[in-house]
């Protein structure tokens, strides 16, 4: 674990210099560890195939048809990803791909389980929002996700190259974010929720915010790397906190305003919180000034309270959160979905009902925002904690790459991407388990839907690219009797 830590006694100034010249000490002889990755991927495929078999046994006592095909398809997909990593990012972190693959695989299994509910004499009700081809689509999306993963690794050979497109990607991100708000509701509204967050055309829907997230993370990293020295300039010191100068507040206020616009025009509290949180934390990492965290948090709190005061749909979320059981049978606000999710988790208890043996179909739209409650119901507290720890490990590996990489842009980008995973999991899992007010965003890798899955795979690819850069052995000067120095290209 101590492989890539900087010495703790390092002076602040040197650290703020993003480790220029500071050698990450005690990096062991760099190894790709691709064999470790392969071994864990074999394990992942095993777990996913067994879970798939378990669903069939739980539902009707039979091994489900297509287990071999699905298992093979999944194995081929993760195998392809593994080969691509061997070829394109041989020094990348060996844990990220297996962790992501496990989540993706379990997501497919759960979607299959929900799709089969009530069909072909299985117990439970048919979930009307799912068709018999939902799982097939999810497998196709997974293939697209892994293709996107490979493409990111192939096209972005050096994370720093992204820095060139800082403003381009910033503009693309903003357009993607704003697009659903500008389109008519018939195209952009998620039916029944009032949230304008998608683009639905010809039976296919895209949630542009999922990709906006990645674009804006790159933009924030590039922008903050360029501006961090100015932003880090302290103004006054109050209560032991260095407050920034008033004129430097501009960017954070713009980000805050943009997140409020998303909130108001797209009725999407979760995404709004996600982007603002991402920006504030990246700003903090770039400047090292904890005052940004505090200012950001206060602005967010103020913004949510004001919008809760002004907008009924925001207020309803708070009201439901405070007493979900009071609004089970009311129409607005209605906590029916939240309460069914909680019932499901309670029903699962510590060890769960077993795959195929719970009643997750009682929770409306369980296959998207509430999919973690289905896991909680069928795999229990144990399974729920395992999922959270998998996410936690992804975040931890991402932050580790951020700490290890030398280039400040990559550092900031990796830190931001890792944090956005943590924040997204916190917002959605915290929402469905009643910890915080519910805001509908997807659960990375698990929820049904292509956009989230593809963008999550791209995010993993970026983290692996950065960790590959960080772990790649530095070009060794070959000293040939003091005569010439040949620098081997990295």
């Amino acid at each position, binding site marked *: 674990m101590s492989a890539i830590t900087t010495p703790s006694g390092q002076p602040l100034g040197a650290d703020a210099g*993003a480790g220029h010249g500071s050698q990450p000490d005690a990096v062991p002889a760099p190894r790709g560890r691709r064999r470790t990755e392969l071994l864990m991927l074999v394990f992942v495929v095993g777990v996913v195939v067994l879970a798939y078999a378990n669903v069939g046994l739980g539902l009707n006592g039979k091994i489900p048809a297509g287990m071999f095909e699905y298992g093979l398809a999944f194995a081929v997909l993760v195998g392809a990803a593994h080969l691509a990593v061997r070829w394109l990012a041989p020094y990348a972190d060996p844990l990220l791909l297996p962790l992501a693959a496990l989540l993706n695989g379990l997501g497919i299994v759960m979607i299959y389980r929900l799709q089969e509910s009530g069909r072909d004499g299985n117990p439970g009700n048919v979930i009307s929002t799912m068709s018999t081809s939902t799982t097939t689509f999810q497998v196709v999306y997974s293939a697209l996700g892994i293709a996107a993963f490979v493409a990111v690794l192939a096209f972005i050979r050096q994370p720093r190259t992204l820095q060139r497109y800082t403003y381009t990607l910033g503009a693309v991100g903003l357009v993607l974010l704003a697009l659903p708000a500008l389109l008519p509701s018939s195209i952009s509204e998620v039916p029944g929720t009032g949230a304008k967050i998608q683009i639905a055309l010809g039976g296919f829907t895209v949630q542009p915010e999922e990709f906006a997230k990645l674009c804006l993370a790159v933009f924030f990293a590039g922008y903050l790397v360029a501006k961090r020295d100015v932003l880090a300039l302290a103004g006054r010191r109050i209560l032991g906190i260095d407050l920034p100068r008033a004129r430097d507040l501009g960017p954070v206020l713009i980000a805050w305003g943009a997140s409020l616009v998303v909130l108001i025009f797209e009725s999407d509290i979760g995404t709004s919180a996600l982007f603002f949180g991402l920006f504030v934390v990246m700003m903090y990492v770039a400047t090292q000034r904890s005052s940004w965290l505090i200012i950001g948090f206060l602005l967010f709190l103020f913004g949510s309270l004001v919008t809760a005061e002004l907008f009924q749909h925001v207020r309803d979320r708070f009201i439901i959160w405070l007493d979900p059981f009071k609004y089970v049978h009311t129409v607005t606000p209605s906590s029916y979905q939240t309460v069914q999710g909680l*019932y499901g988790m309670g029903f699962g208890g510590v060890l769960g009902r077993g795959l195929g043996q719970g009643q997750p179909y009682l929770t409306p739209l369980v296959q998207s925002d509430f999919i973690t409650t289905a896991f909680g119901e069928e795999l229990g*507290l144990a399974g729920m904690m395992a999922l*959270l720890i998998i996410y936690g490990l992804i975040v931890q590996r991402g932050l580790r790459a951020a700490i290890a990489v030398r280039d400040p842009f990559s550092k900031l980008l990796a830190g931001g991407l890792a*944090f956005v995973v943590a924040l997204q999991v916190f917002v959605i899992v*915290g929402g469905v388990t009643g910890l915080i007010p519910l805001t509908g965003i997807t659960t990375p890798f698990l929820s049904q839907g292509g956009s989230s899955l593809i963008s999550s795979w791209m995010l993993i690819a970026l983290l692996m690219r950065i960790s590959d850069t960080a772990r790649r052995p530095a070009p060794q000067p070959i000293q040939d009797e003091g005569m010439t120095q040949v620098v081997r290209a990295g």
Partner: protein
Amino acid sequence: MNRALRRVSLICLVLFVALLINVNWVQGFEASSLASKPGNGRTFSASLQFQRGSIVTADQKVVAYSTMNKNFGEYQRHYPGGAVYAPVTGFDTLFSQTGIEQAENKDLSGTDPALEVHNLLDLISGKPKKGATVELTINSAAQQAAYNELKATGKQGGVVAINPQTGAILALASYPSFDPNLLATLDGNKLQKNDNRLLSDPNQPLLSRATAVTFPPGSSFKIVTSSAAFSTGKYNQNTVVPAPTQLKLPGVSQPLINFDGEACGTGRVRLIYAFTVSCNTAFGDLGMKLGGQKLRTQANQFGMNNPNLTIPFPVAESNFPLYTDPAKVAGAAIGQESDTVTPLQEAMFAAAIANNGTLMKPFLVNKVTAPDLTAVATTAQTALSQPLTPTEAAGVKQMMLNVTQSTSGTAHATAGTQATGGIVIAGKTGTAQNGINNSGLDDAVFTCFAPANSTPQIAVGVIVKGGGQGADASAPIAVKVIQAYLASLGK
């Protein structure tokens, strides 16, 4: 930037720890309270997967049991007692449970912690999980008689019989009633239809008149007023009290009169005489002398103004507010004004007198038996209060005996020994005025216990809404219940 990144890792750690603690809370600690929330479809459908415990009467008549319904693959509840036992058993559906089905749900469904060991043993020995059997205190003969007699009146009403020595409820009937089998169907559409029909029925059959509805007690409240007087030490049954034909009330133009405006003896009578013929003026005057506070204290000791009484399901509170206006105190002393009681409360009045002044806590569940026939819980008999000393209780008892045994007593014709086949009953009638300016039909009230010439075995409270005079409508019902119960004891 690494220092900030480490801080960010710490923030992420806090976020994940918060999530982990929260899921532990929801799935570990809160799971059972979530499971017991009404409307939790998961718990309910899971509960239909195993056999719910039976409910039986004290004499082992089964009034609720479950069998496997092959069509649905779920256990189906049956209520062989039907409408007769509906106010006792209640029903068990997804969105609501009532009666014993609700109050004893944990035992019937086998989720009570006391049953865990049995469940574990069953699990090991491979026996299917089964709920515990709940044995009621109800006597089937008394229950059947109570329902039949109420039904025969065709009017709304309730009957409750208690064993005065123990507090065990022997009968608890209400009319109009409903067949709980209608709500036990596993067919969701049918259930919806039946439920809507019962809910929209203007007769409100789902409402238990025995425990959930209150009525004015009328003259039966004179038991409480007399008790209050006796407990001051200044009065006994032979104390001479004023009993004018008309009692002038301060600040009110309308005087208090006796039933049909009759005179009460010579206008100054012994309390026992006033009680026997039920003079309103004597007790109105007595009430004003005792005061609202004293009457309220006595009423509380008889179990009124108690919103927390459970038998084990909750019982509607019988009310005796604190009156300060003397005119209202006079009316309240004869069971008018805002006084309201349940038939159970009426039975408790008589039971306290029958048990030498000690009121036992009424209860409906005798014991809970695990599927392997070991008793899991037995209800302990506890005294609720002692409204009277034995001597004072003996005084009230003598007055209540006079009501049925004296030829001038209000219930002599209907509950005297000639009407009861030799059983000696002590009781008090009530005819409560109703409606605006008393334009409605009178409610008939009767509270009594028997046998009054030896150790009393049963105390009965009867209220028939719009039944007219208590002696005419309610006393015969009480007599039938007493006869049925005492006969079943003789067997």
